[in-house]
């Protein structure tokens, strides 16, 4: 055997040893990485260590694995040098007595004993040494790798993925890209908002909305691109069905009655949209005629009924409802109900009812009370129909026995129109007085006479009202006294008419203004009650104080819990949201939107300000002003005290 053969044997052993060392290091490193990764996944899934830890822990696993492999490579570093490999062989074959080390040492190349040494080396076989080394180092490493790999494969997928891949999906996107590697599928969404048909409002398409508003019952379809798998949607607390479509996914719902948050989740991504439903208000119904309650001497003549109705979207139908109550007291009160003048309004936003009904229609008797009110229904066929009702007017028929004590007034006419005409007449008279210096006498007199003619018309209307109040008996004489205020207005109107007819509008103005003021007072007069006031019964409190003999078993009073107002909660959330803005803009935005949902229900002014702040945060604009506005809106008006604060001592 030549010395080259000895060196070759050492080199082959060195290559084999190096391979074992590297394989062992890699196997142990991989086993350690799998084990730590599984532990981290378990911890992340169960304890939610937070976003920072979520990012760091996978790197920690890799570092530990690399360190393990590095240590093992360092320990096997002898395999990189030929002399150390030769020594490694010598350790396992002591009969060589350093013959191999000597042969591979370049400084011994010319030794005369080389032939003897080479014969000693030729008798040694290194294969068994290598197999033993393989069994001692590589086999345990491979076993460890196999075990850890098997455990990793058998563990729940959530542990393998941890929080970051909590929603990792096994499927792939239609494009062939694994979903776990895809960007958010809810980052860009479209909302189609379809109001109920009865509102006659058009549908609209919103791109990436922060808030969706509409009347209660409006259909909303939120859609986006990508596969549907793993996307969840909730409306408040209620889960929604998210369905796949040819071009993506979509979730549909109807706007509820109260503001809620619509939340979309796609793996680690989350998106909140504020749902701001607007109620469909019931029709606003005003009973114009009769203008006020009244008591009639007898149910003769006709009752004029007139109502005005408005609605935010459309009125379906309206009618007058009446109740006739008969009887005086306990046990004998009876009633009849009925409807009049029912009318279809076909979804118009405004309408009116107008009819005249003879009193005989109601079959009224002495002491009966006729209550009339107007009712309207809107066209809401989703959450309605909304019902609006006007104030009630009561027309009472006096009993014969009440004639001596009860003030009888007929159903009053509308003062408003008379008063309005008078107001315009006064304005015209004031204008004439102002223009008097510039007018020729003929023109001035002509205009004054025209005003006098108009004033006379108003006076005659008043006279008609007074005549109606007075009524007439069989002999043609007045049956009742007219309202003294009406008489006062009438007298002032007489004075005004006279002054205008002699071309003295300046002198006509004071009485006309007095008449106007009186008519306004009558128009706004408080309604009086039908039965008078209760007789006062005064209790002798001191005489009866604590003389009761019934057994008392009062329970202890439990103090009420301190009211935690929605404003307090909003302020607390506001502080947290502002803090979050510094560390996690996404979660801060989410919290602001949740606050807006609360504010929409309880503090609409705050909701508007929060909406502006959300828009600024979302757009990345300067948000200071809108945040300040939000805080002020949530805090409400400043409270003032009637004292100087303590720091103003010097004042």
């Amino acid at each position: 055997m030549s010395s080259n053969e000895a060196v070759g044997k050492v080199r082959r052993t060195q290559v084999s040893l190096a391979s074992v060392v590297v394989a062992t290091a890699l196997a142990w490193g991989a086993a350690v990485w799998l084990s730590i990764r599984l532990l981290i996944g378990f911890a992340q899934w169960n304890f939610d260590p937070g976003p920072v830890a979520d990012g760091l822990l996978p790197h920690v696993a890799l570092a530990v694995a690399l360190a393990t492999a590095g240590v093992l490579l360092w320990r096997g570093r002898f395999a990189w040098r030929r002399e150390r490999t030769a020594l490694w062989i010598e350790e396992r074959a002591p009969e060589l007595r350093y013959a191999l080390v000597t042969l591979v040492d370049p400084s011994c190349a010319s030794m005369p004993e080389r032939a003897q040494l080479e014969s000693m080396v030729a008798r040694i076989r290194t294969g068994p040494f290598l197999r033993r080394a393989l069994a001692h180092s590589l086999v345990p490493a491979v076993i460890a790798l196999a075990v850890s790999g098997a455990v990793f494969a058998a563990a729940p997928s959530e542990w393998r993925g941890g929080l970051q891949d909590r929603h990792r999906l096994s499927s792939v996107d239609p494009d062939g890209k694994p979903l776990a590697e895809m960007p958010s599928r809810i980052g860009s969404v479209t909302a189609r908002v379809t109001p109920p048909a009865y509102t006659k409002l058009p549908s609209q398409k919103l791109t990436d909305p922060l808030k969706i508003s509409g009347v209660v019952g409006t259909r909303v379809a939120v859609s986006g691109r990508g596969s549907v798998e793993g996307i969840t949607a909730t409306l408040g607390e209620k889960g929604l069905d998210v369905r796949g479509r040819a071009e993506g996914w979509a979730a549909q719902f109807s706007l509820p009655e109260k503001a809620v948050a619509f939340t979309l989740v796609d793996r680690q991504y989350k998106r909140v949209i504020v749902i701001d439903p607007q109620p469909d208000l019931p029709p606003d119904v005003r009973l114009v005629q009769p203008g006020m309650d009244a008591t009639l001497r007898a149910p003769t003549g006709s009752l004029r009924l007139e109502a005005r109705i408005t609605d935010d979207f459309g009125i379906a139908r309206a009618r007058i409802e009446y109740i006739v109550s008969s009887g005086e007291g306990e046990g004998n009160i009876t009633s009849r109900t009925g409807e009049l003048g029912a009318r279809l309004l076909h979804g118009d936003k405004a309408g009116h009812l107008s009819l005249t009904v003879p009193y005989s229609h109601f079959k009224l008797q002495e002491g009966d009370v006729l209550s009339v009110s107007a009712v309207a229904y809107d066209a809401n066929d989703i959450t309605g129909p909304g019902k609006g009702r006007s104030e009630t007017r009561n027309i009472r028929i006096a009993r014969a026995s009440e004639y001596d004590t009860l003030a009888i007034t007929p159903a009053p006419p509308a003062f408003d129109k008379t008063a309005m005409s008078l107001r315009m007449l006064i304005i015209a008279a004031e204008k004439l007085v102002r223009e008097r210096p510039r007018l020729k006498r003929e023109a001035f007199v002509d205009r004054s006479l025209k005003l006098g003619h108009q004033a006379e018309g108003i006076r005659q209307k008043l006279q008609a009202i007074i005549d109606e109040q007075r009524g007439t008996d069989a002999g043609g004489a007045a049956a009742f006294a007219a309202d003294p205020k009406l008489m006062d207005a009438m007298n002032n109107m007489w004075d005004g008419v006279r002054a205008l007819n002699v071309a003295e509008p300046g002198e006509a103005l004071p009485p006309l203004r007095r008449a106007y003021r009186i008519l306004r007072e009558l128009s706004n007069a408080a309604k009086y009650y039908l039965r008078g006031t209760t007789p006062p019964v005064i209790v002798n409190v001191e005489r009866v104080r604590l003389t009761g003999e019934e057994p008392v078993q009062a329970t202890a009073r439990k103090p009420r819990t301190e009211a935690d107002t929605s404003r307090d909660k909003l302020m607390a959330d506001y502080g947290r949201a502002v803090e979050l803005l510094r560390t996690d803009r996404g979660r801060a935005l989410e919290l602001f939107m949740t606050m807006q949902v609360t504010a929409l229900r309880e503090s609409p002014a705050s909701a508007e300000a929060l909406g502006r702040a959300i828009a600024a945060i979302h757009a990345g604009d300067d948000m200071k002003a809108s945040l300040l506005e939000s805080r002020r809106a949530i805090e409400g008006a400043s409270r003032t005290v009637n004292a100087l604060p303590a720091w103003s001592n010097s004042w």
Partner: protein
Amino acid sequence: MSAFSFVTAMYESGDWESAPSLPAAVIDAVARYTDLPVVPSGLSIPLGSEEILEHPFAWLTGHLPVRFTDAERRNLRKFVERGGFFVIDDHNHDIDGIFHKTAAEEITRTFGELKRVPYDHEIYRCFFDFPDGPPTTSHELNGWGDQLVHEHLLAVMNGDRIGLLYSNKDYSSEWNFHPDSKKFMAVDPTRFGVNLVVYALTR
């Protein structure tokens, strides 16, 4: 502390003054069993007036249809929302009578559906103990009205507290007597009135 005033709410559509002696009977009971400062005669205040909001307790009754004006409805809502205790009692005690029908409609329109008050509610225990719920009135038993014993009172809740109590029991008839008449009665029927006042003032 200002003295308690028993307020009768005046409303425009009906006979609000149909139980004129009731305030005195309840005031008398409050004075007999408690040391609450109490004004010796009741007040009648229009429901449509802001003045009613200055009081914590108000009673409304009648036989005729109840149709609130906008101002009355607005004030009733304010009264309850601000922590007042409003009692509406059907003087007809008809389960489908005109007062019940119209008053319930007005309440529902203003606050939403009425809810039953359970027998273990504090209003039955806060002063006198009424383990069987609202005390039965003689008018329920004597065959008048709907000839029914109404087992429950109904309420509009303001948080966990009763804001409006609605009764078909006709306490307006049962308690509508001069306080001096109590000496002829075996049991003071206005004891439940004390519970109402105590509940209104302390709970």
